């Protein structure tokens, strides 16, 4: 945790510096007749962020924050495993949206989570994976008239059937 605290502050300092640099693409000072330049607000806020990062590093050096006094690992093996399996599952879910549609991705993700990670039975996992996207389809597309991504053309036959029901 101790090293992690400093690395995080360092990363945020770099981010602050980058934001200051990007903000400076627009004027950051006061322009007579037009007021503060377009970059002034984000530039000076990023500068305050940079100062805060130095302050956090100073507190780390003095050992006043709980993280700076801790010898624990940021994530143990279980933490990394759950982050990879759950976080990776979410990334996979979002990546699948443009391929098999939002509803297809929901079905795959729910099945993966409940059956593989949650160790639920096949019947329950399959039911959830099939019923939830269909219910969400009728809510969003039918009731709310909000169209979700329908993926690649091979999903069209399924959507044609569903759209025939709601229109």
């Amino acid at each position, binding site marked *: 945790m101790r090293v992690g605290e400093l690395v995080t502050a360092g990363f945020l300092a770099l981010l602050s510096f980058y934001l200051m640099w990007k903000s400076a693409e627009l004027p950051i000072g006061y322009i007579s007749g037009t*007021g*503060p330049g*377009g970059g002034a607000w984000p530039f000076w*806020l990023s500068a305050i962020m940079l100062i805060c990062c130095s302050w956090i590093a100073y507190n780390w050096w003095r050992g006043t*924050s709980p993280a700076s006094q801790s010898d624990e690992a940021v994530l143990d093996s279980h933490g990394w495993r759950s*982050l990879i399996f*759950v976080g990776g599952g979410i990334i996979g879910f*979002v990546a699948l949206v443009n391929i098999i549609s939002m509803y297809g991705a929901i079905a795959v*993700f729910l099945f993966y*989570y409940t059956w593989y990670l949650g160790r639920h039975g096949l019947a329950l996992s399959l039911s959830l994976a099939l019923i939830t996207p269909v219910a969400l389809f009728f809510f969003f597309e039918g009731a709310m008239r909000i169209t979700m991504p329908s993926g690649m053309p091979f999903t069209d036959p399924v959507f044609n059937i569903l759209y025939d029901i709601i229109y």
Partner: protein
Amino acid sequence: MDVLSLLGDGMLLSLQPLNLLMIMIGVTVGLFIGAMPGLGSVNGVAILLPVTFLVPPGSAIIFLAAIYYGAMYGGAVSSITLGIPGASTAVATTFDGRPLARNGRASLALVTAAVASFIGGTVANALFTLFAPILASVALSFGPPEVFALMLLAFATFVGLGGDDIPKTILSICFGLVLGAVGFDQISGAPRLVLFDYNGFLQGIGFLVLAIGVYGIGEMLWTIDQTRGDVTATTPKMTAKGMAADTKEAAKKGWRGTMIGSFLGFFVGILPAAGATPGSLMSYGVTKMVSRKPEEFGKGAVDGVAAPEAANNSASTGSMLPMLTLGIPGSPTTAILLGGMVIWGLTPGPRLFVDEEQFVWGLIGSFYISNVAALLINLAFIPVFIWMLRMPFTILAPMIFVLSIVGGYAATRDMFDIWLMVGFGIGAFFLRKFDYPLAPAVLAIVLGPIAEPTLRQSLLLSSGDPSIFFTRPIAGPITVVALILIFLPALKLLRRKHSKTPA
């Protein structure tokens, strides 16, 4: 007396069978739309606006106002049960509503939200009825310096939200404000902070993208890590007796927050361009500040649920005031209502109270009836919402992830925002590990787009002289109070350190 008789007529009008039916349907639909992450009153009102052309204008506006009311009540449901603020107005409800639900007190949180919303709505209705014209003129006297001073006051209350780690809190606020500045410069129209020159950033970063990322994805990852996936499912039970006991407890422990939220929310709500979100956030901050047990906030304080819920309902009524009396919408939802009124041939403004007396008082009367209907319908549905929490965690968790992604997409309609949301979620998970308070960043991204233009307009008015924030009669005192609140934690910290130093 004249006002009371007009109000009585208005109430009778809204109790006519068609109008009453409209209220019941509107509140129920609004409740469920508001409870869905990513959807809020603005979606409900916008989507159902065409439906209103089937009924007379009076019934139509009553229907839309009932949806607005229902959605305000519903916003608390996803904040409490899922930990995802469905709309910006319900962000502050998450801070204490979710911990209460985790501790098996979801019913108390939901009942508190319902009762506080009802009281907030009732107080606002009374203030609206009695002082509409006077308050409209007060709201008009708020120029850019006054609005910026008010935003500064809101940020000052955030510093208190972040706990003792002042640099991390300030960093969080500034980060949220900078994220709110991504996209286009509102005044010159020039592209600004297009990060890594990626065009997706041109449309800016919406509040919901950060809020769902932090609270929907980040919070769940953190819970899974902390509990090692072995979350003890809470088994809250809901009985009539239990609900009565919760109502009693809500009244006893949440009265202070309810009162602060009711009055502060209304006042902030009537200001054009402010709306219910700043009202609920400020009410939370002020209630925490004046509380005898501020350390309980964020861990499941009843006042922490009551204050924002009373405020967002009160403010939603308040935001109708500038719309009806001046023709200026106070929130996106009232902007759509305003559009609807114009379509129906009504002209909002000072003449509306004279030319369309029956319409106006029918609408005001419907606020009272909608408020009662919303309370009853909300209480009736609480067992359904509670039932969601009884699901095993390994089913609830993927459902929350799915609702976060779907709700996020429904709000933004852009896959780039969904990737950003996932990124914010994973980032929030690590930042939380190192005790960075994330609530201030979420709050700042909401208020940033109001604060920046008002600051720039104020400085333009004064030719760059910042004393404009101190010399104006309304802005001055607000700015001074805000600065005191900003420096108060630092002074307290210094005093504490000084008292620890041996003589």
